[in-house]
């Protein structure tokens, strides 16, 4: 009890000293080059619903809870408190905890005044039967009210009992977002994935997803929604995905 009280006072003290908004997202499948303002603390909740029908119908809803912290004008850190999901397919149904993660983003150049805004991203996640390393290069250019964004991501993943199953993934994502007003923006997102089971490319797994997004922000909160449909026909991949990120600053 005393430990819980001390922990609560510690967390409250941190929240009181960090009272700004980290920033709003224009995309949900892409990261943007600018990092959170120093001293800001923001909670972002991710919900992603996927439905697939090839070869059998399945539904999966993923949840992420991200605590985003602005450290300096160029560095931000995030703690993913818990990644968990609900799945429903012919063989099983129920909730499962997946992993927790930490992430760092370092901003190199600015998307407004430099030719291209660049940031580098690193994430480590681990769970009971899951370990993953992810690195990303984020490139962004702001052209007036238009934001062009590109991410290239390399992932290495180990899963299942004893982390015996492993695979790599290379992903590139392209997004465009136009601000209709300072509060509302609309855009498009594209994903192109190369999956390498057991670090091999014999199966030639390529996935392409594309779809629109909309973002709304007001005061110290924002919500961004993207709907993506699969343009390829890969078995066991979602036909469509809907991702919502709702964030608010303390």
């Amino acid at each position, binding site marked *: 009890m005393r430990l819980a009280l001390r922990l609560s006072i510690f967390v409250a003290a941190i929240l009181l000293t960090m*009272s*700004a*908004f*980290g*920033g*709003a997202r224009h995309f949900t499948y892409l990261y943007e080059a*600018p990092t*959170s*303002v*120093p*001293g*800001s603390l923001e909670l972002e909740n991710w919900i992603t619903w996927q439905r697939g029908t090839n070869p059998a119908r399945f539904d999966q809803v993923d949840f992420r809870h991200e605590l985003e912290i*602005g450290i300096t*004008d160029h560095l931000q850190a995030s703690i993913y408190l818990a990644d968990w999901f609900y799945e429903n397919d012919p063989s099983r149904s129920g909730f499962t905890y997946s992993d927790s993660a930490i992430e760092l983003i370092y901003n190199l150049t*600015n*998307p*407004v*005044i430099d030719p291209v805004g660049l940031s580098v991203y690193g994430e480590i996640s681990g769970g009971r039967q899951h370990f993953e390393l992810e690195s990303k290069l984020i490139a962004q250019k*702001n*052209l*007036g*009210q*238009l*934001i062009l964004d590109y991410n290239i991501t390399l992932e290495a993943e180990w899963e299942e009992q004893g982390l015996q199953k492993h695979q790599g993934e290379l992903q590139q994502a392209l997004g465009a977002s136009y*601000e209709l007003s*300072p*509060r509302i923006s609309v855009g498009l997102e594209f994903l192109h994935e190369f999956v390498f089971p057991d670090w091999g490319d014999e199966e030639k797994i390529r996935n392409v997803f594309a779809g629109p997004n909309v973002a709304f*922000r007001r*005061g*110290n909160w*924002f919500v961004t929604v993207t709907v993506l449909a699969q343009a390829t026909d890969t078995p066991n991949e979602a036909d469509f995905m809907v991702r919502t990120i709702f964030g608010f*600053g303390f």
Partner: protein
Amino acid sequence: MKKISMLSVVVACLSACQLTDYVPPVDPQMAAATRGRHVDVATLREGRRLLVHRCIECHTLPPVWHYALEDWPNIVNSMSHRASLKPVERDAIVAYILALRSQR
């Protein structure tokens, strides 16, 4: 040929956007435009730096002529807490915008 034409149109549109420089670097003429408010070049440079780092966290930068000169202090002030701006930083951003606005 059709693809090349479309690509040319896209490049032209993007170039047009790029040519609209909403946050030009600070120059002596800009500092001179603040006469009566006595703002130095260093403050204007800091205002520009903060504008392009803090404000784009939530939104793109609007052209300064979108809003009246007298509206800008209240606009920046209304978002200064969210952007974690100290009063001196907020004033530097306002000074840069007003100097830029005075030139237009």
